[in-house]
């Protein structure tokens, strides 16, 4: 029995504490800005905090939110995002997104970029986001 438990512990795949789904970024030219969107799923019983995002595709990467005030709309930086236990947080158009500022190269439709998210509990999580032109 003990052997079986050890086997399960070491060889069966464990679910990631945080998983990233449906990651995509908007196509854009070198020198301009793009936005990255995805869903973050917190599979654990503890809240976690996204506090930094890295990408070699841009000079500056920030967590942003789009906000509305009547007919006016704008964007502002958000220092961190709390992902509640067993929940999904969506980064989506007209809402929270990752700003890729001053792109170092053209982001062409169909290409992929590696992104690293940094969480207070789960640590760094790497994934690839596909460049799309959908709106």
């Amino acid at each position, binding site marked *: 029995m003990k052997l079986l438990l050890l086997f399960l512990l070491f060889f069966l795949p464990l679910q990631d504490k945080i998983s990233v789904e449906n990651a995509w970024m908007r196509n854009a*030219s070198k020198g*301009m800005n*793009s936005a990255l969107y995805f869903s973050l799923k917190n599979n654990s019983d503890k809240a976690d905090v996204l506090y930094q995002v890295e990408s070699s595709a841009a000079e*500056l990467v920030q967590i*942003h939110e*789009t906000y509305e005030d009547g*007919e*006016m709309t704008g*964007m502002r930086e958000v220092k961190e995002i709390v992902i509640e236990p067993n929940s999904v947080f969506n980064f989506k*158009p007209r809402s929270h997104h990752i700003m890729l500022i001053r792109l170092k190269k053209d982001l062409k439709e169909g290409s992929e970029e590696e992104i690293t998210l940094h969480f207070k509990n789960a640590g760094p999580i790497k994934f690839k986001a596909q460049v799309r032109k959908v709106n």
Partner: protein
Amino acid sequence: MRILKTLFFLLIIYLLNGCNNPLPKETVISDSFKLLNQDSAAVVFPDDYKGKIVVAGFIFTNCPDICPMTIHNMQLIQKRIKEENINNVQFVAISFDPLRDTPSVLKQQAEIREVDQKNFSFLTGRKKEIDILLNEMNVNAFTGDTTYTEDGNPVYFFVHTDRISLVDQQGRIRKEYSGSRINIEEIISDIKYLGE
């Protein structure tokens, strides 16, 4: 008494007509604006488009979230116009960031968004000219927070009206819509009304 009846009858007719008019707004753009398009060709707005229905969107190219949706919506309207064989419609995306949105930057934007530029122009101009135009078009845009890249270059974004405006053949603003959320069927119906 007969006069009163006639006046009452005329009032009813007037009210019924008013209710049937989907575009009661008629704001005259009272000035002419010397602008440049994405090919650096001079455009006088709205004079050069008199006689055409104009779909005018307001954007800045460093905006990666809301403005691409406005441009995309204008492309959807342009596609519907073409499918329905509606002629005489011009599309203009006016930048409220003329200091960065030069004609070459606008050309790059038109190409990366795969805009059919046959009847779709991106417009920029001198800042003072653009500011007056925005005021005429009831659009607000001002710079929000500024941050800096590692090499000290400032990065700024705009807080702005999310807007597409419909301008009639006489250069009058007839309706205003949310640029990123516009109901395509609604503006197509309004364009058809203006074209009748």
